[in-house]
């Protein structure tokens, strides 16, 4: 398959401070999700390096990263093993959190997208990361589940930070204190999320 090569980061050096949550802004296709994958370590840089301190999650997306032929529970077990956390504890936590009922033991490919998102969210909340990488997912499910997940997530943020990609400036203001704007291969860090949002919005107006 042929693809288009695009420069995402060009001669950039940024330190993400601990203790502050960061919102990642940029136009469509600027490379926000790619940047999250680079931070997570699923993508390698062509040149340069990423120095990570602390436990970083995989990029949390809507679909989750599940093997379709295995049940939700088996997938959770797998994640528990590769992240070295207590298997039974995590399985029990997700069972309660995700509210999948009987579907928890059914293959993931039979899930609705809402169920997958709930499972994905549950797994990530069950493991204590120092950094959560969030790609456009904070609110999934119906109103009740939304309220519960937002509350859990906010609790997590007392010890953990989040690096979040979102097109919703409201969500970003809600969760993040600082921001990064990705534009033309340049990554600019702003101490104040509102400033980052302002820069991003003026970028959007220019085109």
């Amino acid at each position: 398959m042929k693809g288009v090569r695009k420069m995402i980061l060009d001669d950039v050096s940024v330190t993400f401070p601990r203790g502050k949550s960061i919102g990642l802004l940029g136009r469509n296709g600027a490379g926000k999700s790619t940047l999250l994958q680079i931070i997570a370590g699923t993508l390698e840089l062509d040149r340069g390096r990423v120095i990570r301190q602390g436990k970083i999650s995989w990029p949390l997306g809507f679909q989750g990263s599940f093997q379709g032929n295995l049940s939700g529970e088996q997938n959770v077990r797998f994640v528990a093993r590769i992240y070295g956390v207590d298997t039974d504890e995590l399985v029990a936590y997700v069972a309660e959190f995700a509210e999948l009922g009987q579907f928890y033991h059914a293959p993931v490919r039979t899930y609705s997208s809402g169920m997958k998102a709930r499972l994905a969210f549950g797994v990530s909340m069950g493991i204590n990361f120092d950094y959560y990488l969030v790609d456009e997912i904070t609110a999934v499910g119906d109103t009740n589940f939304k309220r519960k997940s937002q509350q859990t997530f906010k609790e997590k943020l007392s010890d953990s930070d989040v690096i979040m990609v979102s097109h919703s400036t409201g969500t970003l203001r809600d969760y993040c204190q600082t921001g990064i704007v990705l534009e033309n291969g340049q990554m600019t860090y702003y101490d104040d999320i509102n400033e980052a949002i302002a820069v991003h919005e003026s970028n959007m107006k220019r085109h």
Partner: protein
Amino acid sequence: MREMSTRFGAKPGGYLWAFLDPVSHIVFLSVIFMAIAHMPPLGTSFPLFFATGYIGFQFYQAMAGYLNSAVSGNKALLSYPSVAPIDTVAARYALQLVTTAIVAIVVLGYIVFTVRHPVSIHLPPILEAIAAASLIALGIGLANTVLFIMYPIYEKLYGIITRPLFLVSGVFFLPDSLPPIAKDVILFNPLAHIVMQFRTGFYPQYRAAGYDGFYVWCVAASLMFVGLVLFTSCRARLRDR
């Protein structure tokens, strides 16, 4: 690690197919050849002759087929940073090796106990044949995971080219009994050597004329080398897909 294997390896349909495939081949070949010949080229049992050939061959064939899709079949799990593409290959290798070994023990064990003459089994050549077959498959599998992604047309060509492999690996005949020219051509195929060696473990009287262990291991080592080099140099692209 066991957990990883089952996770990466999860096969739809379960293990039943792992048995059904060799058993149906062995039965099919036995029935056909029993109709056209009185005696198998070795020993007196058609099922044993075909089982030793087909299962020896399967240590390569089933392995290569399974490894080719190790990365593409586990794409979802590769989004976890702690899962490397090579893990999926290693896990599938271990799982397939154990699967084929269990199939071999059950199927060959059953045949050995039901034939009238006692069969003396000599393990070292069997194990060496298995090691060589599975390493050749591993080398090819490593190279193919990369090449299939980069050149989709190659995947089609590979399928066409390797289809007759079964016919030229000496599964249902002995390369020794071919005319000299045909024999020389067949023995370019390292799998023919592997099947011959596998059989020597079951037929003490079989001399396997023409078997060249050095050649087999040279092929296995070069394929492993090429596979590892390709896989390592392209591992960044493997996750991408």
